[in-house]
């Protein structure tokens, strides 16, 4: 693995599987009386959040604390950023405090990449603008793998038969080969979609984006996925449907005539859910706009993995922090 996790494209199939398998082993921790491991004792993880976030920040904080790391939370509100401090100066301050890892969320695409050039520790991108959010993609992949392997459900394309030697009921060691994932909605503003397309295809899944043309990014034809404007025709062949939040706070122009019309054509309601194959699952990165991209009945249904995704988020982020910080500080010297 590389020293930073900036983009899902940094991860080879081997890296991604190592993270998912590590997360699989760590998942058991949640059921134990003592939900803590001593592994990162004495290491410091800084959560550097320039943008509002509840679940991602708490998720990273819980992950770091379960590995016994010290956690420093920094949010732009109430900090010297309000006095005009630059990202670089903030980074250098944190560096001087001895951060072994910096988890950064920023509204500017590329912020995590810039930061990686300024600090000695590992940088984990927790969302930069409309660019990437790799740990979300990892937890989605983890959720998909766990779910679709549970009880031996083998979607078309034969998960069971083609899975590599040594994989078990929870999918240890297996990729997502042949799994069909449809990502629906505001792809244009979504860092989650980009990271997921990159990671899921690395793992062998077939990804289709279903969105109105106005919400698809420039040069989407160069992405390693299919594109469709018609959600209804994609549903019957999907193993996984990932609904994206309509990011009204990032919308500076009229991307669709009305929320009602968007919801009619691209929202997942009970009628649309009924068109999915029996084994199919529904993901949403949260926070949800109930009644816009996803109906409340769907969000609360048995197919919805939304709560499971949150739990898996902690586990997956523990795996990432362990693999980045658990070994030698300078792996290049050790080898």
């Amino acid at each position, binding site marked *: 693995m590389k020293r930073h996790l900036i983009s899902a494209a940094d991860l080879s199939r081997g890296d991604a599987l*190592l993270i998912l398998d*590590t997360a699989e082993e760590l998942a058991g921790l949640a059921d134990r009386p003592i939900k*803590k*491991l*001593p592994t990162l004792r004495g290491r410091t993880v800084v959560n550097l959040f320039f943008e509002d976030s509840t679940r991602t920040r708490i998720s990273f904080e819980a992950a770091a604390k379960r590995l016994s790391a010290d956690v420093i939370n920094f949010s732009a509100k109430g900090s010297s950023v309000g006095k005009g401090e630059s990202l670089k100066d903030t980074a250098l301050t944190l560096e001087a405090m001895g951060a072994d890892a910096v988890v950064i969320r920023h509204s500017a695409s590329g912020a995590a990449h810039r930061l990686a050039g300024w600090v000695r520790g590992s940088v984990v991108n927790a969302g930069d603008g409309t660019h990437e959010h790799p740990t979300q993609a990892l937890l989605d992949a983890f959720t998909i793998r766990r779910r679709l392997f549970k009880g031996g459900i083998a979607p078309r394309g034969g998960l069971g038969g083609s899975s590599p030697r040594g994989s078990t009921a929870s999918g240890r060691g297996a990729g997502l080969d042949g799994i069909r994932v449809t990502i629906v909605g505001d792809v244009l503003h979504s860092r989650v979609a980009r990271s997921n397309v990159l990671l899921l295809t690395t793992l062998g899944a077939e990804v289709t984006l279903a969105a109105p043309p106005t919400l698809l990014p420039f040069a989407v034809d160069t992405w390693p996925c299919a594109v469709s404007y018609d959600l209804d025709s994609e549903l019957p062949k999907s193993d996984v449907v990932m609904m994206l939040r309509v990011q009204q706070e990032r919308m500076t122009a009229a991307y669709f005539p009305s929320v009602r019309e968007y919801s009619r054509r691209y929202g997942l309601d009970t009628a649309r859910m009924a068109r999915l194959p029996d084994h199919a699952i529904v993901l949403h990165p949260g926070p949800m706009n109930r009644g816009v991209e996803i109906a409340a009945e769907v969000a609360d249904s048995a197919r919805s993995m939304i709560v499971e995704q949150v739990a898996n988020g902690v586990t997956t982020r523990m795996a990432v922090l362990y693999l980045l910080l658990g070994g*030698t500080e300078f792996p290049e010297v*050790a080898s």
Partner: protein
Amino acid sequence: MSATGYPVAGRDGLAVLDTEEIRRALTRIAHEILERTHGGEEVVLLGIPTRGVPLARRLAARIGEFEGLEVPCGSLDVTMHRDDLRLHPARALGRTDLPPSGVDGKTVVLVDDVLYSGRTVRAALDALTDLGRPRAVQLAVLVDRGHRELPIRADYVGKNLPTSQREVVHVLLAEVDARDAVMIGDEGRPS
């Protein structure tokens, strides 16, 4: 040892225990466990990955044959508790699988292939503390090669193998390595 009774030098070094000898050592350990735990009541066998796990299963099967007693058997990964994590790049984790009965109030027998510095066992004791509170913890190893760095000893030993620290001991088990043997060599893969 070969059929002629002389050690055989192979690619991995010198064979010091063969299939039959490993089988006999495990049979003896299984009897000793039964003896020392008053018939194996409330015993849980926990293998330390990788090769401690099949050894624990074999011991459980042996105890089942002798006493008709089903001994709960599981695995305990110690990676996250090791004291040498920072000396290597991050390692892949092994499985931790506790039997449904848990470890509280039980006599836990930790099972590993080779006892060397004692650091793995130290990590295992810490890992176990986080999982529950056993009544007692014992240690069974197939090979004790000496050179302890911590005050730890085994309760059940398959074979005491005097070694030099330059030597390397490999335990091969059919479940993992397609054959049973204990090899001793000059250098090579660390065990």
